């Protein structure tokens, strides 16, 4: 369903020059599967998901969704995905009903079909109570439900959740995770990014631990934990991140030592 091959993304920063947000990542997610992208803030999760959602263009590599390339067939890809972001992205001056209708019509749904789908979704997500409430007056839970309804209105085969539980209370968070599980059971392919390991353990069939744009590990989380000798995903995550940081610091230490040696050798030749 989702195939990502050697995907890279490089940003140029005025202060720090080029920064590699994604460094040749590859993965494959199937129908009826939840693929977890785990990582700290700034690891590259959002960049990867934005590329899959055709919002950003990759610097190199490629990604396909249901056989459609995210760069060449971006319009087709957008028909096949539903995107839920952490900030819910709800229009303040639109009601839940209006917002979902708007996106349904953008997806070209027939009015009758749209109405049926909306009734179904609003019932399924228990949204009827606030269907006429403006976005500005919704609670975080209401916003997130509206956001999910918006993403599901065209019944896409692929769903992308970018840190969707951020800012939700326990009940709303649990409700969202339940919804994601149900969607998986309906055969959707889901990419779910988070930095909360318990969510990943509960939901994901496969995970990838992303750090500084690179995959440190990828596969079934239980297999990975067993392979590295840890009981849970959180311990595995901490250990992999710690190892990666120590490798980085030792390599930079090596570089600085090499530099100093060169300088001292040059100085000795001078004297």
């Amino acid at each position, binding site marked *: 369903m989702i195939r990502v091959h050697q995907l890279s993304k490089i940003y140029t920063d005025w202060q720090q020059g080029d920064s590699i947000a994604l460094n040749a990542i590859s993965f494959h997610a199937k129908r009826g599967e939840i693929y977890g992208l785990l990582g700290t803030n700034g690891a590259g999760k959002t960049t990867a998901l934005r590329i899959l959602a055709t919002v950003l*263009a990759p610097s190199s590599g490629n990604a396909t969704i249901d056989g459609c390339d995210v760069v060449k067939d971006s319009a087709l890809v957008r028909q096949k995905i539903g995107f839920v972001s952490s900030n819910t992205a709800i*229009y303040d001056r639109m009601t839940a009903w209006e917002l979902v209708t708007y996106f349904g019509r953008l997806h070209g749904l027939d009015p009758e079909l749209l109405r049926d789908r909306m009734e179904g979704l609003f019932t399924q997500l228990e949204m009827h109570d606030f269907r006429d409430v403006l976005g500005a007056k919704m609670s975080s839970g209401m916003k997130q439900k509206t956001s999910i309804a918006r993403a599901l209105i065209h019944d896409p085969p692929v769903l992308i959740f970018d840190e969707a539980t951020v800012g939700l209370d326990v009940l709303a968070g649990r409700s969202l995770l339940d919804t994601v599980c149900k969607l998986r059971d309906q055969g959707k392919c889901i990419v779910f990014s988070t930095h909360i390991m318990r969510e990943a353990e509960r939901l994901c069939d496969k995970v990838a631990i992303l750090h500084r744009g690179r995959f440190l590990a990828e596969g079934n989380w239980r297999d990975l934990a067993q392979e590295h000798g840890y009981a849970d995903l959180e311990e595995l995550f901490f250990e992999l991140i710690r190892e990666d940081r120590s490798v980085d610091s030792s390599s930079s230490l090596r570089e600085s030592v090499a530099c100093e040696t060169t300088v001292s050798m040059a100085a000795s030749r001078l004297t």
Partner: protein
Amino acid sequence: MRWSNIRLVFWRECRDQLRDRRTLFTIAVLPLLLYPLLAISVFQVAQFRHDHPSRVWVIGAKRLPSQPTLLHGDRFSDGLVDNATRDLIALGSAPPDWTALSQEALSERVEQEIQQGHVDAVVLFPNDFSLRLEQFNQQMAERPTSQDTPLLSFSEVPEPTLFLNTTNDKSRLAAQRTKKVLQSWREQIVRAGLRSRQIPITATRPFRVAHVDLAEAGRQQLAFWSRLLPFVVMIWALTGAFYPAIDLCAGEKERGTLETLLTSPADRREIVCGKLLTVTTFSSATAVLNLSSLVLTGSLFFGQMELVEGAQPLQLGAPSIAAVVWLLIVLLPISALFSALSLGIAAFARSNKEGQYYLMPLLLVCLPLMIFPVLPACELDAGTSLIPLSGILLLLRTLIEGDYLLAARYCLPVLGVTGLGCWLAIHWAVHQFNQESVLFRESERVGLRIGLRHWWRHRQETPGVTGALCCGLLLLFMRFIAGSQASMPATWRDFVTSQMLVQVGLLAVPAVLLACLLGRRVRDGLLLRWPGYRPVIAGGFLAVCFHPLGMELTQLIHNLYPLSDAIGKQLRELESIMGPASLGTLILTMAVLPAICEELTFRGLLFSGLRRSGRPGFTILTSSLFFGAIHGVFQQSLSAFVVGILIGGLAWRTSSILPGILFHFTYNGLSVLLGMVLPLYLPKQPILQLAFDGADGALRYHPLIVASGGLVCLAIGLWFRGWRVDTQPKEQTLDHHPDTPATESLGTTPAA
């Protein structure tokens, strides 16, 4: 593009804006309230101005002559001014001790009293005023009529002093009223003197100037509305585009909804078009509502006001229906232009607040262009019709005034310029929405020290786009400062020195230094490459072929925008000081020096930086803009801009400034020859007379030569198109990475 998606985005955005109180206030409430409130305020002020009695103190009233009388009790005498004015002056007496005060002390006291609001103005009659006035009248009466008596022998009458504070409105008004009374009194004194000598009073005023206003009442009204309405419509069209544009771009970014919208099936062009339609609708609505409110208020209130004091009151009714129709027709392209510009600029901003900062410069740029047509003596002609915004304002004015013949003559250039502006602005707005770097701009922390250190360590081989733009602005600024300080050269030697200073000191040396500073490879940074003999020679040949066309272009520019008298005089003076120069030094100063120095700067440093954007149009046009702007005279800048485009094209194709240098040298050299040498030989050489036409004073090529030159230019241009742009790393931006295949890279190699 799918119209259904555009319509959906448009309706959503419209509904969103209509639910926004700020937008509603700006487009609907403000115009409906603004003009009636303004009118009421004006009336209040006018009434206050007319009804408020002024308090005036007179010092030395007792010493005034008895005939003609100035004062009658606590009022001015009857017959000096009309009763209404007289009743608006309440006379009072100053404290008795003021008569003994010196002028300075009195000024201080009066100032204090005016500030405290006790009095508005004070009139001081000097102690001997009455006596000296009496002496004057006596001398006048006894003055023999047979011979001229020198005026100096007359007794001088000391001046009465009127104390006022011009920063205080009440004081100014009181002084104005008092002055009117005193002038009338003085006239009465003069008349009394004349009567005593039996001279008719008309001797002081042998004739009067009569005014006959030939303007019809309707024309007066048209002239008033034709200046006011287009300006108001344009200002409000711009203001009306601001807030929706900011909310639709920066607001969406701030709320995070833009990302979601981009993941929907709506194409980016469809999104931009939907948003653009919305902004245009609100911009037009704001202008229409303001127009309606102004017209309604104007016809109800302003029409009743006496606009010209002392003349017949100008009765202003509502503008004609035709005027309103023309305004509505022209409003659409104006709104579209402003909306596209606002949308493109607002796309940069990350928040509503930032959006307001970015859009303010747009207002500052547009305002002079909108004020220019309102200035007296500014009319629609070939030159003004080509100025963006000003042209369409003048066209509107002409249409409202009913001069359809003139409007029809310049309609096409005005609409062409406006249409081109619209198209470019819309294209730019769409381009902005396709830029990741614009849509997902992260917060920038600007640390000068760290930034400079990073920039120095990571500077690339040649300057980047930003570096080139900064260099261009810096050079322009230096040129402006030097130009404002320099004086007109008096001799040929002075001229050569100033040319050397400008070309070498302000262009070439800074260009080389900046190329060293901003890039690691100076030669590449200045495009100092050898492209082969053929393109260099072709560059020189192109200049020869283009020269006739260039001369025609210069003539056209001078016809459209004639030189001002001052500039014309300066140019003639320059020509006169060039007289004693030899041909060699002329060529060296006017052709060789600019060809090297200007090309190093504009097609070298600036071009090499700008070309890293990967966009030939942007690179060539921007470098030409700077090249044009560096030339001090506007008309010269325009032709330099066009020539700059041509040389820019050569630089783009060949990745070298050498063909450009030869082009520049040849072109300038031919101009020098044509201007200085040819007039000497033309009368003697019949062959030259076949090629040039000098009948109307200006030396011009024969039309056949111009046409042939144009055709050969075209052929050379096509030959240059065969040159393939070759590999040179493009500037690394969000949209590009060196790992990607170098499909959009620069440089040249001859086609295989």
